């Protein structure tokens, strides 16, 4: 018996590889004109893995204190072999990751893929978006540069608006009343321990739900199939779907490496708490639509409103009863389009004409 066969048998006797392979061989994914959106979720998973790997590499040199953080990142960028590449990939992939989570979420929303029986898949996905934003918010401060310091100041300030416990939340996040080295150390803890732990658990659940329930077929496609206008089409997961996934991941890696090499992620100036803030300090791009909105409404109302909107968004499958019954619901499509437009327009305003 060849070595390969002996190795296979050794594993097969212990973890029943035959069963796993049979499962993979028969696993299929719906195939139709909207199935391109199925690949976005896989891309997010891939970018998360890229983040984990590059993050671990950065951890080898990063020092989470106000005195040494900036210098350690500077050292990574200038002295550590390929340190500039690893940090730039980590930064670009982080932004692409969050951007694609939004794309994934809105594609799921507009295809009403959250409808029964996939409510839990949606909820775990929405939680993953919040966790990703938490990663972005905490990671942004870690290089301890001036922009990140100011953005964290602005961002954490909104915690005060939470009724009743606002001040406590603010001080919990900052490790005191001000953004200091204590905040940096705390954010480091969130970024490399707390959030990865929770994310891994929620991501595991999300993947389990995806696996157990399969991909949702949009109602319009289901209707076409039911009316006999089009046949039901499926694509084998292995190898057809997987090859497409890997093609996408390869191209994404190429794009990230291209960006990282041509425009390495900037480090900026070291944070100086005594330096006056320049005008138009803004948080990271994925918070800008909220930040800009809070300029037009009373802050307490805005923070409360976003809290409610976030909760409603997570529990959305329970509100859209028509979709759950398998009926088209154009109201929710309109809501989704308005939400996308609102976020896009307010983000744009935040960059073009931020106001005071």
């Amino acid at each position: 018996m060849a070595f390969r066969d002996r190795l296979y048998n050794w594993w097969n006797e212990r973890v029943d590889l035959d069963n796993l392979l049979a499962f993979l061989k028969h696993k299929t994914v719906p195939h139709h004109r909207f199935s391109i959106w199925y690949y976005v979720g896989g891309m997010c998973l891939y970018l998360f893995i890229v983040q984990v790997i590059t993050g671990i590499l950065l951890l080898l040199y990063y020092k989470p204190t106000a005195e040494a953080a900036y210098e350690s990142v500077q050292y990574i960028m200038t002295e550590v072999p390929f340190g500039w590449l690893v940090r730039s990939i980590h930064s670009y992939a982080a932004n692409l990751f969050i951007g694609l989570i939004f794309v994934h979420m809105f594609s799921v929303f507009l295809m009403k893929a959250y409808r029964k029986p996939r409510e839990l898949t949606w909820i775990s996905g929405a939680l993953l978006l919040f966790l990703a934003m938490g990663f972005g918010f905490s990671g942004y401060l870690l290089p301890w540069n001036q922009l990140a310091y100011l953005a964290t100041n602005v961002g954490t300030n909104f915690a005060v608006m939470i009724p009743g416990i606002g001040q406590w939340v603010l001080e919990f996040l900052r490790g005191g009343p001000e953004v200091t080295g204590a905040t940096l150390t705390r954010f480091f803890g969130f970024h490399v321990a707390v959030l990865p732990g929770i994310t891994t658990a929620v991501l595991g659940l999300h993947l389990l739900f995806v696996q157990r329930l399969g991909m949702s077929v949009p109602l319009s496609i289901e209707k076409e199939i039911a009316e006999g206008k089009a046949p039901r089409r499926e694509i084998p997961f292995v190898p057809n779907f997987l090859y497409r996934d890997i093609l996408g991941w390869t191209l994404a890696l190429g794009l990230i490496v291209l960006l990282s090499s041509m425009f390495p992620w900037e480090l900026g100036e070291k944070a100086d708490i005594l330096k006056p803030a320049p005008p138009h300090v803004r948080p990271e791009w994925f918070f800008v639509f909220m930040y800009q909105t809070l300029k037009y409404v009373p802050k307490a109302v805005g923070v409360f409103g976003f809290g409610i909107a976030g909760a409603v968004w997570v529990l959305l499958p329970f509100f859209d009863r028509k979709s759950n019954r398998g009926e088209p619901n154009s109201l929710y499509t309109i809501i989704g389009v308005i939400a996308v437009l609102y976020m896009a327009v307010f983000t744009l305003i935040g960059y073009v004409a931020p106001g005071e």
Partner: protein
Amino acid sequence: MRNTLILLIIAAGGSTVALAKSSSCIDCHISSEWVTDTTIVTDFTSGDIHFKMGISCDDCHGGDPKLGLEEGDPDLAMDPRKGYKPPPSRLTTPDFCGGCHSNIEYMKKYNPRLPTDQLKLYLTSVHGKQLYDKKDTKVAVCTDCHGIHKILPSSDSRSLVYHNNVPETCRQCHGSPQYMKGYKYNGRQIPTDQYDEFSKSVHGILVLEQGDNSAPACNNCHGNHGATPPNLASVSAACGECHAYNRDFFNASPHKEPWQDLGYPECEQCHGNHFIPPVNDEMIGTGESAFCLGCHEEGDGGFAAALSIKAGIDSLKQALESAEKVVKEAEERGVEGGQARFDLGAAKDNLTRVRSVIHTFDPQQVAEITTSGMRVAHQVEQTAEAALGDIKARQIGLAISLIVVLYVAIVLWRKIKQVDSRTDFVVRGK
């Protein structure tokens, strides 16, 4: 009227209410029935430091304001037999003010930090000597610079003697050719263009345009109460108050003694006095605008020293410029240049230092600093060049990795086509 006045004074400061109630001076001097000029009171009560400190009219002018209040007769209040002193003449003003301001015990009660030597200093000043010795009442007395009844502390930006207002205050007399006519210094008419010259100088621009009160105004070099034209020996002392290193370097330099013998006024010789233009490196060396050529000529030691010093500075500047160019290029091309910038800053410090050390006129000392600066600049340049080389390596690496990515993508694409051609996507029987 009385109530209005009391209200006015309450508004000006609570601590002075008692004063207003017990004083008839204000009652009469605010009323056009008694006086034609009521500004004395409005000036005095609108911020005068004496008024704020609770010092009343009779504390300076004497008399008995209570009597005036009780009897309703101003003459009783201003009775010389009650110690009333009429407003002092210009000739007696310094003694009038000095009565209190030279009294250490008295002044301690109000401001223990305030000097009490103003009158003493004034007597040594040109103004004081003219006034007391020649009875010349045209010269500045206390009230010309401080005001009369609206005397503000010098820390108040509205004060005539606030640092940044001093040039304008001095200009009132020293900028007027008519007023200054006949006044001579060293046998020559005192010029009246000092303010115009000063306003164009580095110091004047800072004081008058940028509101920088760390730059010198007239009194920083000439003194204030003891105002006097600085003589030759004290010019460098005045400049050296701020430019201490340059003063010390110059005092230890080979120029010190010969310049003294020649009667050259040290700093002023090269930099001017009221008009001090921004310095530039062409002031030293053997070029057309170099001051060294005023005394030195080709063949003498000074000429060689000037040549060497200038060459050192130029070489350092060139090295810095060259390093800056490469660092900038590296930064623009995305290389993190924080450390290079920091090191370049240290090399630039050498340029600043050498511009001070040139006052030693010692080529050896200058060379030590320029050489060390150039060494750092060259190191920075080499590091930045290595970083630029690294960029080239990155680009080659990028090109190779993109070729690999593209190759894998093509292989996958072909594979997808291949497996798709063998797959029947249509689900039957479901």
